[in-house]
């Protein structure tokens, strides 16, 4: 069942990705994803689905447990921040290079 506003029913996600609902609930307990409840049905937003798919791949491909996923999530977030910072600094540097 699809909902408007980019919400996807948890049941559909479980069927499509062959994951147990308990796995998604555990991810939420670890603060790794956030579900939304509307009219007693649970949904994931599009952005949260992207996160979930990444955790599913890591868990299935590399046998990483929830604690590992939590650590990876924090480290990837740091990597992303640093990559953004590098990209901003590079853009600034290029800007100043034009004047030299």
């Amino acid at each position, binding site marked *: 069942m699809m909902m408007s506003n980019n919400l996807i029913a948890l049941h559909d996600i479980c069927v499509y990705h062959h994951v147990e609902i308990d796995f998604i609930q555990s991810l939420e307990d670890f603060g790794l994803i956030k579900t939304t409840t509307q009219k007693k049905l649970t949904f994931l937003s599009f952005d949260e689905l992207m996160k979930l798919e990444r955790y599913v791949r890591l868990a299935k491909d590399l*046998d990483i447990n929830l604690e590992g996923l939590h650590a990876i999530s924090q480290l990837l977030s740091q990597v992303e921040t640093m990559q953004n910072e590098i990209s*901003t600094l590079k*853009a600034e540097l290029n800007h100043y290079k034009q004047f030299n």
Partner: protein
Amino acid sequence: MDYIDYYKILDLKKSASIDDIKKAYRKLARKYHPDLNPNNDEANKKFQQINEANEVLSDPEKRKKYDKYGKDWQHADQLDAQQQQQRQYQSQGGGGGYSGGFGGEDFSDFFSSMFGGGAGRSSRQSPFKGQDYNADLQLNLKDAYTTHKQTLTVNGKQVRITIPAGVENGQKIKLSGYGAPGANNGQPGDLYIKFNISEDPKFKRKGNDIYIQEEIDLYTAVLGGEKIVETLNGKVKLKIPEGTQPDSTLRLKGKGFPVYKKADQFGDLYIKWQVKLPTNLNQEQKELFEKLSKS
């Protein structure tokens, strides 16, 4: 076509056991998995090589074939004969180890020649979506005011996008399929573009509303008058009522910023009046002000 040493890729000896192969694959997969290496094409490529090596070495049949023909790549005739024999076997309904049904485009030419056009994949290996790319796009406020197209270069590829009017600073949009190619016939990743909107010296944006400050002289503030004000949408002539107070604000409905993806909807424009007092008065003017103050 270069010979690919799958043992070297997995850092294994030729005598490695199935367990050794599994361990080596897991170790390298953890290091080069695309989800753990965002925006790293090199890691993505390496991951594909590791998968390919594991695909062959973890399957006893394929490993046997690789060990037999892999090094002596010049024995192509023998290999062809074997492949033909295998095709005959499959067409007769034998359906052996190479079941087909998967695309081979993520495997090397070496792999495809050795094991057929991608027919070597086992169902144990799941496809991997390509990594997502992230890009920043710098806009000024006037750029963000109108819907327009821009061409970006992301990892050497030209991507033309339409930027809808009203995008917010920090807002991200997703372009599906513009990320890195997937592995094992997986879908390509996505491209996420983040908009960085620089501040404008005159127009301050809060949501969909715009705030500006305009100067009027004392006489216009006291007696009323007209003023031409520049908005993001062109100039407008405003009537200033007599007795306009300093720092009072006028709201122009629908003259603010366009609402994102809502055609013909706009925020409001707020104009704060800065009243400029006259300086360097001559004697006559001073006397007039004095008279005024006593009246």
